[in-house]
């Protein structure tokens, strides 16, 4: 396992190495663009060449290498394959104010200053130095502050800060897997224009905002720098327009250089991010079985079932989906029997893991539906009074986490991907404020974990070999409601502390009347649905893998190992299908994906639920078209038989 985790690190290192290799050309392009003078082309080119071979350029290159290394490290440290979706404004605020995020913002600010300094030195001219010799009014020589460099350095810090904040808002650390496989080079080539465009546009907006901020607050850092470095502010001799006046800021060449520097900064960082995403999400081929015992932990069934970092589990599921589709030789290994004993260990491990993933999602959906069915209906009747009752009702169970010091942003290696509940638990504790106001969002997600505590019967794979309809599940105890909250949760106090405090309820009711608070508390549209399906890429692969394997088993499975699991596969798919259908009929769930804008933000998590719905249907059809009438011989409940018949007649 450690070896596999190393693999990810090595991939990240390779991506950083490529980013460093790409630095010299991007520096060259930056120099050429920043010194552009169409009237003197020969002078322009010769200046650029001499600058690129100078010692300053090499020094800034080394500095920029350091910056790229740190950015690459931050990418590796903060990335996640399961996005943390803030369900309300206040949860988002909590994420932004979290210490971990604060550290990241600070580091980005510093890196921004470093890059901006490199830019200043490269552009040269009036940006070259921080101080310059000048004479005061009384004639004494002194060192004065060069405001042009200050404005550039601060712009770097500002753009860096914006980058880090927008990264949180847009889930920039989310790494998605592409459905269309391409070689790394082609993928990079395809995304390069997008990166250039995004960094230029983002830099434009950041610089605009920065200028507004500098116009009003620019004097603060300027006087501070003057005081610390003992420099004089000379407004008489050199600069005709002080830079915090409108006339001073409307210097076209200054704006151009600010924009170019911002673009360069964002470009290098985005390239690092892009390369990281490309390298980490590349298909990794796990061996299905190995004859050497020391390699067994690297085999697909072991990686799938073991306690792995989320990324490894995702890679394994991705590999499973691809092997089931494309490679007959690896499929035959899945269907094979163990040498002494003759057990289909590989198939059992893979199918059990996939089925438990599907069952888990079904449970989550049913639980969510139940909460919405009970709370949501009351909510839709009227607005004012019911909100109060809703919040008081849901304040029964409040989720608290004792691991406040631990990171919020990424699911660290220790985190299971079983359910994103843990992600939400942790992401919602950014600030103490968050906690009381988000329970109605978090409670449905936490319920699978609670269910396991309460009912040991529903362990692992509730669908295995038995026939259960979701109606049975729906009768399960509603642990998130006030009445039952205390009973079921006593053994897990480290995660969930029930608070039924009339005082707190009163405070909440009081706050609920304030407009700002309500604004912060209101659910973001779509967010709860997105959050529910945040890790659904794994379910999509599980469905694809299972359905392709079952399809292939029709002709390739010599020992009939799949036959034994076919009823449970079919029934779990049908149950999930019903749950997904019900989810899409909820009033708040939109039936169509929103248009994704072209930016560096990877918004594919927003459409995962639609992809799941389509994949699920296709997966069932794949099995029914392959097996046809033979499915009538499969042991299943009458309800599921009826549903399968619908699929056999192409009426779904």
């Amino acid at each position, binding site marked *: 396992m450690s070896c596999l985790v190393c693999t990810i690190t090595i991939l990240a290192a390779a991506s950083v190495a490529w980013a460093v290799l790409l630095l010299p050309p991007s520096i060259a392009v930056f120099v050429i663009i920043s010194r552009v003078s169409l009237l003197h082309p020969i002078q322009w080119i010769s200046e650029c060449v001499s600058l690129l071979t100078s010692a300053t350029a090499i020094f800034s290159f080394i500095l920029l290498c350091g910056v790229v290394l740190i950015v690459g490290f931050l990418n590796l440290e903060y990335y996640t394959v399961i996005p943390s979706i803030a369900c309300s404004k206040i949860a988002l605020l909590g994420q932004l104010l979290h210490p971990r995020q604060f550290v990241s913002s600070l580091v980005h600010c510093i890196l921004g200053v470093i890059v901006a300094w490199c830019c200043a030195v490269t552009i040269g001219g009036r940006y070259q130095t921080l101080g310059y010799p000048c004479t005061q009014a009384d004639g004494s020589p002194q060192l004065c502050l060069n405001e042009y460099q200050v404005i550039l350095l601060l712009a770097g810090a500002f753009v860096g800060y914006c980058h880090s904040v927008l990264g949180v808002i847009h889930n920039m650390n989310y790494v998605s897997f592409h459905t269309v496989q391409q070689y790394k080079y082609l993928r990079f080539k395809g995304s390069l224009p997008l990166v250039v465009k995004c960094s230029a546009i983002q830099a434009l907006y950041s610089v605009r905002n920065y200028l507004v901020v500098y116009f009003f607050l620019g004097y603060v850092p300027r006087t501070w720098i003057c005081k610390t470095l003992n420099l004089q502010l000379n407004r008489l001799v050199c600069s005709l327009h002080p830079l915090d006046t409108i006339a001073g800021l409307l210097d076209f060449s200054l704006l151009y250089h600010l924009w170019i520097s911002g673009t360069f900064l964002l470009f290098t960082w985005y390239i690092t991010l892009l390369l990281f995403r490309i390298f980490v999400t590349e298909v990794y081929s796990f061996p299905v079985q190995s004859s050497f015992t020391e390699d067994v932990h690297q085999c697909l069934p072991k990686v799938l079932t073991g306690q792995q970092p989320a990324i490894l589990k995702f890679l394994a599921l991705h590999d499973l989906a691809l092997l089931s589709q494309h490679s007959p030789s690896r499929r035959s290994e899945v269907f094979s029997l163990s040498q002494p004993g003759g057990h289909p260990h590989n198939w059992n491990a893979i199918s059990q893991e996939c089925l438990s993933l599907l069952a888990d999602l079904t449970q989550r959906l049913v639980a969510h539906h139940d909460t919405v069915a009970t709370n949501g209906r009351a909510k839709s009747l009227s607005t004012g009074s019911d909100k109060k009752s809703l919040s008081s009702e849901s304040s029964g169970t409040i989720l608290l986490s004792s691991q406040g010091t631990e990171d919020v942003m990424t699911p660290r290696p220790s985190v299971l991907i079983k359910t994103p509940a843990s992600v939400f638990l942790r992401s919602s504790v950014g600030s103490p404020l968050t906690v009381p106001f988000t329970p109605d969002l978090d409670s449905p997600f936490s319920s699978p974990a609670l269910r396991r505590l309460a009912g040991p019967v529903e362990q692992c794979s509730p669908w295995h070999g038995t026939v259960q309809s979701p109606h049975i599940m729906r009768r399960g105890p509603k642990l998130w409601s006030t009445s039952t909250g205390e009973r079921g949760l006593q053994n897990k106090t480290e995660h969930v502390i029930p608070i039924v405090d009339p005082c707190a309820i009163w405070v909440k009711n009081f706050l609920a009347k304030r407009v700002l608070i309500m604004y912060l508390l209101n659910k973001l549209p779509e967010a709860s649905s997105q959050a529910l399906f945040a890790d659904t890429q794994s379910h999509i692969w599980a469905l694809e893998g299972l359905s392709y394997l079952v399809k292939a088993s029709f002709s390739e499975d010599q020992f009939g190992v799949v036959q034994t699991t076919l009823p449970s596969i079919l029934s779990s798919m049908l149950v999930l299908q019903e749950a997904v259908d019900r989810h899409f009929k909820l009033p708040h769930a939109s039936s169509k994906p929103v248009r994704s804008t072209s930016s560096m933000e990877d918004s594919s998590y927003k459409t995962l639920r639609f*992809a799941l719905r389509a994949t699920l249907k296709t997966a069932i059809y794949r099995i029914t078209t392959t097996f046809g009438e033979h499915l009538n011989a499969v042991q299943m409940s009458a309800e599921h038989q009826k549903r399968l018949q619908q699929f056999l007649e192409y009426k779904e």
Partner: protein
Amino acid sequence: IFKHEVFDNQPFVIPLSLYFPRESLKPHSRTESSSKAAFLDHCETLWMRSAAAWRDAGLTGLLNEIANSSAEVPKWLSVSSGCVLALLQRISSFHGSLFPHLTLSSEDMIAEFSQVLKWSDCAVRAFAWHPHTDKFAVALLDDSIKIYNPKSATAPTLKHRLQRSVAAVQWKPLCASALAVACQNCLLVWHVDPCSLSTRPSSGCAQVLSHPGHSPVTSIAWSPSGSFLVSASPMDTNMMVWDVAAESCVPLQRVGGGGVTFLSWSPDGSHVLASTPAALFRVWETRMWTCERWPCLKGRCQSGCWSPDGSRLLFTVQGETVIYALTFTDTPGIPSNTKGPKAAAVVADLSETTFNTPGGDIVVGGEIQSLAWDPRGERLAVLLKGQEHFSLDRPAMIAVFKTRTSPIFELLPCGFVQGEPGTEPRLMQFHPNFQHGALLTVCWSNGRITHVPFYFLSAGMARHGLGGSPPQPRPEERPADYINQTLYTELTT
């Protein structure tokens, strides 16, 4: 001429032939410019007009607006925008001289590159059988799509604001309801609930997939696994791979050729044929999405079709009267160094021939419009373009060949399919799972749709007794003597 002989012992009922008279369908003329003339000129500020021009026609429109309103803008602005406009036109005309098809209007472009013969005045512009059931979709001249299902009394009509100049329709495999439509400006994916009784599904049932610069869409193809949809436009050098559920696309760009005109996905899902307007076509491998370039000598690749196991590609080239074949031996999943064949082989020559028939001499042959191979790989239908000018009148006609792929590839003439006097075939497609042989559906120039059955027993079918299952890759090995005794064909000409 056509009478469908319904055999008493055949459980399969051949779908009824349909008739769409050309006169009953009005082509819609809804171009923006035509409706503009009907309204009074309204004085707007320059800002408003510029914004509207930018929205409607992009940069060119904006520059045009500024250049035309020289009275209101400073002189330098109008002059410079005029200069930029002239420069842009120069560049685009240079680009157009490199790729002549770019100068066509989008309607002409669809007509030029469509698989349908004389697409512009065709009553039936596109036709698609559902891959698993007996329903089919018909796109008509008036931009509506009708869906016919023998098991249901309702025939839903699909209309959408963006559904204009439909070039192709195709049903999603492994799905009962999704129908992709290639339109002038976008792709539409309709979700038509098979159990619904509604005759006019709302436009809310359609997903709109569009990408800037990717119009008009002339060809679409679903992957046989139902996971992707690829679309092609002659104006766009990108071939789009759509994840329809997420409405996201991955552009696969190859500049050579200047666009993509025709797409065909092999039935086993491993390859995609993509032809370009230039004398070049590509065969994409769908695992890692890399492509092989195939330059042609004479013209662009006009049409192509795959054998059921995806190992053999037949294609035709514009300006030539032969059918070429390419064989792909590498099995999917195992990356092999052998990149398939080095050159295409000619398998059939369809140059002009005269046949003596009791009704007089018939001249047959010439250029090929489209190819269709039946899902079992036993019949190949070839739509010949025909020729009308000069004294020599050669009508468009469908030639049918018997084919077999193993042990060696064979192509034997089987017969011709001809319509009523004065009509010519425009479009054809094989039924994807006709149980008693092959069923060719032909759309005629008079708006009639008929079905031509070919009854035969195939060895593959006898071995695989899967009722109604989709085209499975059939096993290659087949006793040769078995075929000869089971072949019989009913041609209803």
